[in-house]
């Protein structure tokens, strides 16, 4: 992954990164636009959904699908991602490598050209984005926003973080807010998009069995787009709450309660204690070797899953478990005991080593996944900080128990969120 790596400037702050990995048979292409999470986030979420519907030369789904079919069923995926305080607009494709096409014809360059065309030649006239597409995709985004409740595990994590970071950019849902959607019009969004396109940093990532020569047809024609002052969105750690931990209880008609707890750490991706924090979270709840898995699940049989996970750009951590509603206090007690054991340094050599090995195994494994390779470079760009995988592995191996106890002292409980059934909390819960 650190091997063959090629960076090419396509225009002002439009970069192409080529990561050549001959072991893959298909190629992952990702086009990313970086925006701050702000009052425009709902519009930003809507944009790629409209852009994917067509552009000059590809007026409808039928012509797009015909093109993708000829490119051996290349996919077209669009979405938005939340990376700390940033919202990333994504248009991407997975396409077979030119080396596997039936007649050796080139398809990767065509796909790159197509993705750039979608963003630079959108179907916009004086009435804004094409009405039919705008209306349909606005309805679709509305549904996506509403559908946040469908996955109760994700929903409870989202809600817990939302409560933790109230009033901050990070509290925004990646698809935005249904109320804001009402104020967005086809013409207003088109105007916003034109301005945005001239000032948004754009990166294109290509991972797979591709030589730079294969992309010649694409590289010869620079994206036809006006570029002005390019604005990079800012990134900040989550502030430490001044108040005591809060408890938030939410009711829904569910069979299983979702207990989710958030913590601020003050330690972000570029902090010198980030790697010890990573190991801390792994010992606490990073898999089958962890304290939460073994104590909440294996010993007490209270849950099927119980984990701890970091939000590295924000210095936040979340713990989640799905439990019987009546077991709320009992589970809280066991989770609190695990945190206490971490603070007191009650960590066996086996626990420390298992966590280190699991993390190292994960980092090595990322080299086999095109999206993970892309993601690592994006992390570097949005954080402005670069740890090489080998550097990271080396640091993980050197983390000591003392360092873990040290970071344990920085882990401050912020919010306990419980998704439960019925009108009231199950028992009087104390945090």
């Amino acid at each position, binding site marked *: 992954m650190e091997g063959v790596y090629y960076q090419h400037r396509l225009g002002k702050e439009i970069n192409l990164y080529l990561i050549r990995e001959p072991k893959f048979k298909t190629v992952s292409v990702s086009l990313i636009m970086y925006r701050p999470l702000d009052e425009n986030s709902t519009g930003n979420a809507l944009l790629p*959904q409209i852009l994917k519907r067509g552009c000059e030369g590809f007026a409808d789904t039928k012509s797009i699908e015909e093109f993708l079919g000829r490119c051996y069923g290349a996919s077209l995926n669009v979405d938005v991602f939340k990376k700390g305080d940033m919202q990333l607009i994504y248009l991407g494709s997975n396409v077979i490598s030119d080396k596997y096409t039936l007649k050796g014809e080139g398809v990767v360059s065509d796909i790159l050209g197509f993705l750039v065309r979608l963003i630079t030649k959108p179907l916009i006239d004086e009435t804004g984005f094409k009405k039919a597409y705008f209306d349909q995709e606005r309805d679709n985004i509305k549904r996506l926003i509403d559908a*946040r409740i469908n996955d109760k595990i994700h929903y409870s994590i989202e809600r817990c973080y939302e409560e933790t970071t109230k009033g901050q950019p990070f509290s925004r849902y990646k698809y935005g807010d249904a109320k804001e959607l009402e104020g967005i019009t086809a013409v207003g969004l088109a105007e916003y998009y034109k301005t945005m396109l001239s000032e948004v940093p754009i990166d294109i990532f290509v991972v797979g069995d591709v030589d730079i020569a294969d992309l010649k047809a694409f590289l010869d024609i620079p994206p036809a787009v006006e570029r002005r002052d390019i604005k990079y969105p800012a990134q900040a750690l989550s502030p430490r709450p001044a108040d005591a931990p809060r408890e938030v209880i939410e009711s829904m008609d569910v069979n299983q309660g979702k207990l989710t707890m958030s913590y601020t750490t003050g330690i972000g991706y570029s902090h010198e204690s980030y790697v010890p924090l990573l190991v801390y979270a792994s010992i606490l709840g990073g898999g089958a070797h962890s304290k939460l898995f073994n104590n909440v699940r294996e010993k007490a049989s209270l849950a099927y899953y119980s984990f701890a996970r970091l939000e590295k750009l924000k210095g936040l951590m979340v713990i989640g478990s799905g439990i019987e509603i009546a077991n709320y206090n009992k589970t809280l007690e066991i989770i609190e005991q695990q945190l206490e054991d971490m603070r007191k340094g009650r960590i066996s050599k086996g626990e420390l080593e298992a966590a280190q090995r699991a993390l190292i195994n994960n980092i090595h494994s990322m080299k086999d996944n095109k999206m993970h390779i892309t993601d690592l470079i994006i992390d570097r760009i949005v954080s402005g900080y670069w740890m090489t995988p080998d550097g990271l592995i080396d640091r993980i191996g050197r983390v000591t128990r003392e360092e873990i106890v040290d970071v344990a002292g920085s882990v401050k409980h912020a919010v306990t969120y419980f998704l439960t059934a019925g009108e009231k909390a199950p028992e009087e819960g104390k945090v």
Partner: protein
Amino acid sequence: MSISVKEIRMERIRENLFFSKLDNGLEVFILPKKDYSKQFAIFATHFGSVDLKFTVPGQTGTTEVPAGVAHFLEHKLFEEEKGNVFDKFSRLGASANAYTNFTNTAYLFSSTSNFYECLEVLLGFVQRPYFTDENVEKEKGIISQEIRMYDDNGEWRSFFNMLQGLYHRHPARIDIAGTVESISGIDKDVLYTCYNNFYHPDNMAMFIAGDVDINDTLALIGKNTPKGLAERKGSIKRYFPEEPSHVHRERTEQRLAVAQPLFNIGFKDSDVGIKGRDLFSKDIITTVLLEMLFGKGSDLYEKLYGEGLINDSFSFDFVAEVDYSYSILGGESPSPDRLFEIIKETIKSMESQGLREEDFRLARNKLLGRYLKNFDTLEYIASNFIAYHFKGANFLSFVDLLEEIDLRLVKERFEEHIKPCDAALSIVSPQ
């Protein structure tokens, strides 16, 4: 003792597969993946949630077991007399997991170092059951929470409600994990009965992908599987209740805490009892057909998307098992009933003449691209290979079979399989 190995070269996809069958009946497949960091091994038995009534080879009389037993057994194999298996993998820096589906149970690990040690652990724990009254009881709490978690999952509920709509009696209609009630009837004797029958090497297979030495790997497997044990005469008889060809219930609706209705539509396939190459061919023909009928770019997709009846969550698949098979559509829709009507009307009025040669070629291209994508993820190729292997088919023969089919076969399949009278609708709607 030398182990004979057969090499299967696949020029088109540039892969070589090595195959060996041990005296005890275990079949081993190795796919060398030179440049991958990861090694992936899967040890699977042809025993899934539908196997509830069977006769042991060489015996008379049938055994019936409670629903959820295959999955329960999967959970319990991870427990050993001393310690648990996860700890062993953790110490080796590998991550282990398992899954149970309708027709097989698989144990797997992914490593980036200590591959041979991990393989030994995998072979060891799967062949060393340790069930006690106490540890079986303890697991009921964990599995109950797993079942409860799925009870809140709208997509999962919609899927199983559809299966219950399609099937009168076939056990595919029962949740893989069983129910909280059915698992209460599981004890250690039931587990041992199933174990002794289904975990014989002659009912199991192993697939390994990664940069491993073929001979060392095979020697290690030979050493760690029983030597005196011979392949049993005859095979396990599996009994399924007689299943009428018509659907059990055309419409099922359940209310859950979801934002908007989720749906599944199933088409019951009466062409069952097919194995091996014929089954795989039927699978591919039907998948091409579904792509032509419902794929993005089809007239029907465009109409449904344009009317807002489907969105990007829409997907379709063909499930081809030996004893049952069906086509499935799914996604979110504001009006699943109207969607169902339009689909039924369209296929009723559409004649197979409506299936065009150019669309057939595009669909075939798309399938080729998607198939190649499998090879970029060791987990996919391994689990797919195993699943097809237990159906008597070779997953790596896909490209050859795809090239053999023509539009005539697709048209025949349309006439025979996609019939409004064989369709069932399942809806999970908001409260």
